């Protein structure tokens, strides 16, 4: 059986590199995208087992991408990873079917542990 693939969508190169590195060290495969539009294309092309998604990004933000994913039909688990802490944004993500909200900077070991729990 192949490695489970995680899509990391973030406009920050630093975050993409750090999160992907931690996930690959933990035995996952990763693909990355720089904004919501690239992210939607990657979901179609790569069929990831999970998405880790930033909120504030150019072209299409993470919440708009989330609402375009139709999670209630696909069941694809999505975790938001963002600096945002506003309850209204969290509520919007929850309503769209996201599985969790992580506030940057997150301890990478805790992030991997959370991914394992949610993807199980």
């Amino acid at each position: 059986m192949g490695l489970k693939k995680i899509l990391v969508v973030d406009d920050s190169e630093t975050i993409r590199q750090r999160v992907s590195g931690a996930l690959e060290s933990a035995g996952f495969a990763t693909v990355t995208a720089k904004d919501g539009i690239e992210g939607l294309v990657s979901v179609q092309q790569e069929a990831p087992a999970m998405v880790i998604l930033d909120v504030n990004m150019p072209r299409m933000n993470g919440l708009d991408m989330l609402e375009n994913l139709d999670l209630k039909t696909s069941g694809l688990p999505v975790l938001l990873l963002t600096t945002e802490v506003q309850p209204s944004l969290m509520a919007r993500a929850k309503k769209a079917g996201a599985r969790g909200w992580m506030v940057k900077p997150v301890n990478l070991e805790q992030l991997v542990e959370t991914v394992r729990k949610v993807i199980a």
Partner: protein
Amino acid sequence: MGPQDGRTLLETMIQSATVDLFHAAGIAVAPLAANRVDCEAVSSQALMAMINFSGPGASGTLGLLVPTGVFDLVKQDPARPFSGMAWVQDSVNQLLGRIKARLLQFQMPLQMGLPMSMDEKGLMHLSKQGILAAYRFRTLRGEISVTLSGRIEYAKLNYSSTVTHVSEGDIVIF
């Protein structure tokens, strides 16, 4: 809250947020007195980034200037290196996120823009627009500066003990 109290509060927030941000990256920083940035003295080698913010009580730009020597202290996976410019843009984004979270407790919500790189011309432009304050921090590899320009209505800062929200590092499973 009076303007002077508000100014002092914001200064404390910016200083604590900056110390926390660099501490999380394993870099010790110590706040120095707030001052104006001497644009002429900023090294062309400094990493500079800025991010806009807006809201009912404040709008403007937060800038971050970091000596390249400080970036050399950042731990990286050699297999997945990132550039200093990417790092400083991510840092100014996370810094504004931390300040924004602190301001929520004082009922001042902010919308964040996207981080952008900044060059010396951009810094001069910000300076001409009027930098409200520059917060300086000492490190082992030179001084970091955080600049704040724009409009802040300090009187709108109003503490609420009933506002609860998640904070840095929190993971919430729905």
